[in-house]
């Protein structure tokens, strides 16, 4: 596609439910990033995929969070047993290679846990 696509754009879920957030990166981009942005705050790094290498999961806040990237393309971020503090905008970005190229962001998924 023309840009990074994220779905859904908005998600309201009940506390304790599981959610899946999807990211379609730009075709051919080998690097994919997930970030979380709480209202008015900065970008909190969650996880990073680069090609076929093991992902860098150092930013995941708890074991309730996990992410996969199938076939080096689409990625899914899963949050299990959601809590109210998980409410935020989840942003996905991709880049052509992991060094020296810009990251293109999707529009984000706004997650609200009620």
């Amino acid at each position, binding site marked *: 596609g023309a840009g990074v696509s994220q779905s859904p754009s908005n998600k309201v879920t009940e506390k304790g439910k599981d959610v899946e957030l999807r990211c379609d990166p730009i075709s051919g981009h080998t690097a994919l990033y997930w970030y979380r942005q709480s209202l*008015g705050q900065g*970008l909190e790094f969650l996880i990073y995929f680069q090609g076929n290498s093991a992902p860098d999961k150092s930013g995941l806040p708890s074991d309730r969070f996990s992410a996969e990237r199938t076939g080096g393309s689409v990625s899914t971020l899963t949050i299990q047993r959601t809590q109210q503090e998980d409410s935020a905008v989840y942003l996905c970005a991709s880049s052509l290679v992991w*060094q*020296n190229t810009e990251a293109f*962001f999707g*529009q984000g998924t706004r997650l609200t846990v009620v």
Partner: protein
Amino acid sequence: GQQVMQIPQYQHVQEGEDFTTYCNSSTTLSNIQWYKQRPGGHPVFLIQLVKSGEVKKQKRLTFQFGEAKKNSSLHITATQTTDVGTYFCAGMGGSQGNLIFGKGTKLSVKP
């Protein structure tokens, strides 16, 4: 782990005044990138600096990368209302691929 600090957190200026935001890393960076996020939008890439001491300009915006490749700055000359938004620096470590963002500087411009 790698940390990127950015100051100030907020900056309110009168239109026509200058603006500067500063970024510091706890480790040496392979490159630093700057992004702008408009209210309600997503971050959009502005520029990347790679070389020690590098200075780049985009119209009224001047970007600098420190000699030690651990700090950077963005300076806007004669701000306009269209400059409103949050400016983020993002550092990439030498052997790490992840892009770590500073907390951003939110700029407001009073006409």
